[in-house]
């Protein structure tokens, strides 16, 4: 228990090199007490690193460093020798993702909120950058303080070194490598600037921007660009300490806290764009997409916080527990093993654990679930040390490295092994000192009282059980804390039982002390060790039942599949084919699909290799295209500013959205995922195909023209703001000016770049053109607007009332482009002629109205009138539920507007394809087009029509028969997991440590919307805005 003080000694005359280092500026109050701390640990099983284990080895340390490790190491004369027979010595662990010693950050609610006021810029005083979430200037070594209480909790787990940083913000500055010794900060820092840190989490920033996943991503992208530009000292920027620091720390290891499988990929893509390979701090769910994770080629940092099992004792509560949550409970411990199997480099961390003391148990569970002990050791020693460039100092037991090691009672990850003590920089920290000697065994016990002497045979067993044998066998208890011992036994039963108690001190094999018997007589006692316990090998190594785990499905959700469905050759026979072409509706027609394309439309078609689907009595249409959707994204609204053309929905697609499958069941095959309507110039949109099970990139509709969302009216002027709006604009007058200003700036930006290009063209041979980005700040926001002006990006504009529609047209005319699509456009019927002249398309609702002021004049005849005026009109959903019935929504124009059935169907097939510029690929049944098809049970406009098969790229993604089977499988899998959780509760394993339980947790579903309507989706719906303002909060 004695702690060796190393106060940077000055008296070590024979070590001149050390003498120089050992001088200190710190005065000593008293008599200096400098010691070299030379120790020799002998007879140990020395695990130098994950590959090298040396039995009967010696480890010698001096002055906090290792001076020898292995066999044949000379033991210095001045060494204190510690016999480690039967003990293991390991390099102590390194936690690469810690905030040890960092000041607690003040959490503050920030971000965009429809109801609250905005904070447009950084409120941190000083010469810092514009965004409060970018803390590139934070230097962890300057705010680091030793905190022995926290250090102890980590040392007790075997850690000796950490990389610590302040976990706050999107850029977090640098991290510091420090040991966990309880010494002055100066002495424990191993490397002061060891790493640079990033995340997608706004943290304590109270600024409104960014308020979304895509906003966080874009802020990072723009900051890389800005920092590069800042290298040329632009006068307009003055001194920007944030960007200056950013540039200074780019050569350090770059660590990105992503925390989730899709976020890992998002982070890696940012890195790819700017030539940075991040080390990615992962979550617990990467095993669900390990192939994609592998493709990042990043090193990972894995937390070990596994979800607790749920109480499964109430069927009414269980009803709301999600299959995915249950499956994740079962499979989360396989995450590290999956990384190992995929050959991905990784480290382990205590980060994210609610209580760090769970680390060891969870690590053992990870090993039980497939992680090899050797990899586990590397992930805690060599890997982090190597990534941080400190493997010359820590991470293995080599001469010259810091004396950071743990002494254990057995193989370090084995279930019964305990860490006896943990040495950090040559300082000993006791962990389970009492286990150094195994007190279990048989002792000769003698008690001496006035009445005489008695002899017992005392046996101490596992679990504090002691037996005292003289004539009878008495059972009792013992406890031992490494020094002090307590014993007791009881005689008799029930109320008349009497207890004899003893206490004393251990001097190794001999113990002595005093006692008091049941009658109140005092006595003294002595005990001496006789022999150890005979350990029954089998009893401690009971064979666990082999793990039986469910499968990973794609997506990892109900209705997910074990493997992705394959493209087929399909012949649909004898259907009523609604071509959405000039051929009209063809009865008794066959359609042949091959290689993902429609290859033949006709009668009496045949193909020997084709799967034949009988279409008799059924209707075949092109897949439905939803021009306005908000599914399958992690965030939808970046409302932090009025112009956010820089953000991209495509940066944050979420393939794990059940609404993809639900909409396939309603015949939807292509969806245009729009930014929300929180601001005038919203973000860049993403066209996707509903390829259920695909990853985020494969969802994208490749080769389609880029679009962007604009919005007008109530939402962007924040009419519903409950606390007053302070973000420009506050009226439709201002909305128009936001657009005019944005395009004016974009125009100036474009002209500046043109001028540079023209000047470059005039250069003579041999003259090198300057990099335009040295003079012009590349601006992602303006870049997107320039694309619009050059007709390379197209607008879909949320709009309602005629004045704003007209105004938007005039702005577009002034800057020489066309508003491609007006979406919602509920008063489009009032200005259909103007829209027609302008050349805009219209995408609207069938019958929504009167849910807010600007839709008072919305009418269900809108679509039909616009169509009669000559506009290309679509019916869209903007609603995860209604999207499943878009065919019927189109049918309403037959009722309200007298439209022909054929034209009505076109409003959800070829018309939206045209307005999205993909009518060459989808939207109709035509040879050569993508095989995106729906087979309906009835006339597709009818309320009775059900999609029986929905096909995308010739792949059947929805099949009503298969769906019925999947429903059964979902129930069966849930039942299995419920029973497993119940069993875990009863027995504590496998898969559930006793006590690690939580109340059954409802599986809430995040439904993202435009912030524009009031169609309730169900009890478990989580409001999008609510989610967004919190998604960047606390992880």
């Amino acid at each position: 228990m004695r702690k060796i003080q190393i106060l940077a000694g000055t008296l070590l005359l024979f070590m001149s090199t050390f003498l120089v280092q050992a001088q200190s500026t710190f005065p000593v109050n008293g008599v200096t007490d400098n010691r070299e701390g030379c120790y020799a640990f002998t007879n140990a099983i020395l695990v130098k690193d994950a590959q090298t284990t040396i039995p009967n080895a010696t480890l010698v340390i001096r002055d906090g460093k290792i001076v020898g490790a292995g066999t044949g190491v000379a033991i210095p004369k001045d060494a204190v020798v510690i016999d480690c027979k039967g003990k293991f010595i390991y390099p102590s662990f390194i936690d690469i993702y810690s905030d040890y010693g960092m000041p607690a950050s003040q959490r503050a609610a920030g971000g965009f909120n429809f109801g609250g006021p905005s904070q447009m810029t950084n409120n941190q005083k000083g010469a810092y950058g514009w965004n409060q979430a970018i803390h590139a200037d934070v230097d962890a070594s300057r705010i680091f303080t030793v905190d022995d209480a926290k250090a102890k909790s980590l040392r007790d787990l075997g850690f000796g070194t950490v990389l610590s940083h302040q976990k706050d913000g999107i850029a977090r500055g640098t991290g510091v490598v420090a040991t966990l010794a309880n010494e002055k900060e100066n002495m424990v820092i191993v490397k002061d600037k060891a790493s640079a840190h990033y995340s997608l989490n706004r943290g304590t920033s109270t600024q409104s921007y960014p308020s979304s996943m895509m906003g966080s991503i874009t802020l990072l992208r723009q900051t890389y660009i800005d920092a590069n530009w800042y290298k040329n000292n632009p006068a307009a920027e003055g001194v920007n300490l944030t960007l200056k620091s950013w540039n200074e720390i780019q050569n350090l290891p770059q660590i990105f806290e992503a925390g989730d499988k899709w976020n890992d990929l998002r982070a890696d893509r940012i890195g790819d764009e700017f030539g940075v390979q991040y080390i990615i701090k992962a979550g617990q769910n990467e095993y669900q997409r390990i192939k994609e994770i592998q493709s990042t080629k990043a090193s990972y940092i894995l937390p070990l916080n596994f979800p607790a099992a749920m109480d499964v004792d109430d069927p009414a509560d269980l009803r709301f527990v999600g299959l995915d949550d249950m499956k994740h409970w079962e499979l989360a411990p396989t995450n590290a093993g999956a990384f190992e199997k995929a050959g991905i480099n990784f480290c382990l961390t205590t980060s994210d654990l609610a209580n760090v003391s769970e680390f060891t148990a969870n690590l053992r569970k990870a090993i039980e679930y497939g992680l090899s002990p050797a990899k586990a050791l590397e992930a805690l020693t060599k890997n982090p040390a190597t990534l941080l460039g400190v493997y010359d100092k820590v991470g293995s037991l080599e001469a010259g490295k810091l004396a950071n090691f743990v002494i254990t009672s057995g193989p370090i990850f084995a279930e019964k092994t305990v860490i006896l003590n943990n040495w950090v920089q040559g300082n000993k920290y006791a962990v389970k000192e009492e286990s150094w000697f195994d007190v279990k065994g048989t002792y000769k016990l003698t008690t001496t009282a006035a009445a005489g002497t008695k002899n017992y045979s005392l046996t101490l067993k596992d679990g504090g059980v002691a037996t005292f044998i003289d004539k009878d066998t008495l059972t009792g208890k013992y406890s031992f804390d490494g020094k002090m011992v307590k014993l007791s036994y009881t005689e008799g039963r029930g109320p008349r039982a009497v207890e004899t108690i003893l206490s004393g001190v251990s001097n190794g094999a001999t113990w002595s002390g005093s006692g008091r018997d049941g009658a109140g007589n005092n006595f003294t006692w002595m005990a001496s060790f006789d022999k150890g316990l005979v350990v029954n090998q089998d009893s401690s190594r009971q064979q666990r039942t082999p793990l039986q785990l469910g499968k990973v499905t794609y997506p990892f959700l109900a209705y997910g599949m074990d493997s992705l469905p394959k493209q087929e050759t399909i012949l649909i026979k004898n259907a009523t084919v609604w071509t959405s072409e000039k051929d009209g509706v063809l009865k008794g027609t066959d359609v042949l699909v091959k290689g993902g394309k429609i290859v033949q439309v006709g009668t009496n078609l045949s193909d020997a290799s084709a799967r034949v689907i009988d279409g008799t009595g059924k209707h075949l249409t092109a897949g439905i295209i939803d021009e306005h959707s908000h599914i399958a994204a992690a965030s939808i609204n970046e409302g932090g500013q009025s112009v956010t053309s820089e953000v991209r929905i495509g940066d944050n697609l979420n393939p794990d959205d059940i609404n993809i499958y639900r909409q396939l069941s309603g015949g939807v095959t292509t969806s245009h995922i729009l930014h929300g309507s929180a601001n005038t110039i919203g973000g860049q949109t993403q066209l996707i195909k509903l390829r259920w099970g695909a990853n985020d990139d494969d969802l994208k509709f490749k080769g389609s023209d880029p679009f962007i969302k604009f919005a007008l009216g109530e939402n962007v002027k924040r009419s519903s703001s409950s606390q007053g709006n302070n973000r420009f604009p506050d009226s439709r007058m201002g909305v128009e000016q936001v657009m005019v200003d944005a395009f004016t700036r974009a125009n100036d930006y474009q002209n500046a770049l043109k001028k540079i290009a023209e000047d470059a063209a005039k250069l003579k041979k041999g003259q090198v053109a300057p990099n335009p980005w040295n003079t012009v700040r590349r601006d992602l926001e303006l870049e997107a607007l320039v694309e619009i002006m050059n007709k390379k990006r197209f607008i879909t504009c949320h709009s309602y009332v005629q004045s704003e529609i007209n105004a938007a047209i005039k702005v577009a005319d002034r800057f020489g482009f066309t508003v491609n699509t007006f979406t919602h456009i509920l008063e489009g019927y009032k200005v259909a002629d103007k829209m027609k002249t302008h050349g805009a398309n219209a995408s609207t609702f069938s019958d929504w109205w009167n849910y807010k002021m600007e839709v008072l004049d919305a009418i269900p005849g809108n679509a039909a009138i616009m169509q009669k005026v000559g506009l290309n009109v679509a019916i869209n959903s903007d609603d995860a539920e209604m999207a499943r019935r878009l065919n019927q929504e189109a049918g309403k124009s037959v009722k309200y507007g007298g439209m022909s059935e054929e034209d009505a169907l076109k409003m959800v097939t070829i018309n939206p394809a045209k307005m999205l510029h993909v009518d060459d690929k989808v939207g109709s049944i035509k040879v050569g087009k993508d095989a995106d098809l729906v087979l309906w049970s009835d006339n597709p406009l009818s309320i009775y029509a059900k999609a029986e098969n929905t096909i995308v790229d010739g792949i059947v993604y929805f099949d009503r028969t298969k769906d019925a089977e999947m429903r059964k499988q979902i129930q069966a899998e849930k039942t299995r997991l419920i029973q497993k959780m119940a069993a875990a509760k009863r027995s504590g394993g496998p898969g559930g440590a006793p006590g690690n339980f939580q109340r059954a947790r409802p599986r809430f579903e995040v439904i993202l919307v435009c912030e524009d309507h009031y169609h309730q989706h169900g009890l478990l719906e989580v409001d999008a805005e609510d989610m967004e303002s919190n998604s960047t909060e606390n992880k």
Partner: protein
Amino acid sequence: MKKLLSYILLGLFTFSAAMAQETVYPGKEYKGLLFITNAVIHVGNGQVIEKGTIKVNNGKIEQVGQNIAIPADDVKVFDAKGKHVYPGLILASSQLGLMEVPTVRATVDASELGDLNPNVRSIVAYNTDSKVINTLRSNGILLAGVYPDGSLLTGSSSVVQLDAWNWEDAAYATDNGIYLNMPSLLTRRGGRGGFGGFGQQQPQGDPIKRALDQLEVVKVFLREAKAYAEAPTHTTTNLKLEAVKGLFTKKQKLFITCNIVKEMLVAVDFVKEFGFDVVIVGGSDSYLIADLLKQYNIPVILGQMHSLPTMVDDDVDQPYKTPAILQKAGVLFAISDDDANTRSRNLPFNAGTAAAYGLSKEEALSAITLNAAKILGVADKTGSIEVGKDANIVISEGDILDMKSSIITHAFIQGRTVDLTDKHKQLAERYKYKYGIK
């Protein structure tokens, strides 16, 4: 027969471009005879009469059948050849007339402050000039249950007919129910995955316990109300206790808005303790305890068919097929449409969806006509085309449940001809006029 033609024309072209909804008048009382002939009559009780005739006398249905003679007197005759005739649809539970524009506070009279407001009456705020009303009539909805929202006991509901000068005219059954808004018994969100809680302001403590405590407050109130009702006189008059007297005499039903099993079980508890006629409103998970609801004779008003499944794991079409499960179990249920975006106009199509997923078309029709009338306590007067009932009748070009054929040409409330003009038709005419299109 000459007359009949003119009526059909009148029915289709009652508006002109110059009219506004302000000049759409409630129908005049008609004391004489009225016939609807050659119709496919969907009675509302499951029966269909092909080529049937309906005879209406002084606003009441006097005869329904196939061989009904039409006198040569001065009577109104509507030839519905090739058309379908239905009882007027009933929107069982709504805030029609109380809420004009949901996001504009000044236009909303839908809930009161406080937890125990059984004395609050929805009927007195029902605005017959709401622009929404006419759009519902255009889709065949002729009656509506109107309830006050709020916390716990929110007030009394009434049934209105949708062609009236003022709320007194509109009142069809006054204070027929007391509404109880059940506090949620769903375990609160604890945050999923990476998100540490969704930031909703949650009161401290166990929310389920708090909800049960709130319900106990309601029960204590009702116990005291029962005692109060039994005393012949009172020195202190208590309006709140007075307001629920009808529950004990079964002149009123207790409508409890709730959705999940635990909430519905608590609703059942009100039947057990007080013997009330209880109706569950919402009932999205009612299919899970259909047998139990049948056993206690608790009817259900389903809030909305066109809804997403509650759970990710649920059958993707669960809300659509819930009515078929209730039907099979013998539970009395109605389908309502509380979609705030379309303002309830899709009631017939909500029923149509139920028909696509397991109900027969006539069963689906009952869910928006006779069943609704039974649940609201007005089945003696309306809900079906049967002798003795008010002539609340709709004529449609085709199947009323299917949007592509659900084109309403005529409607009658208590025998009065309803003007089917609405704001939407007028605006459409206005701009067709501008563009010179038809």
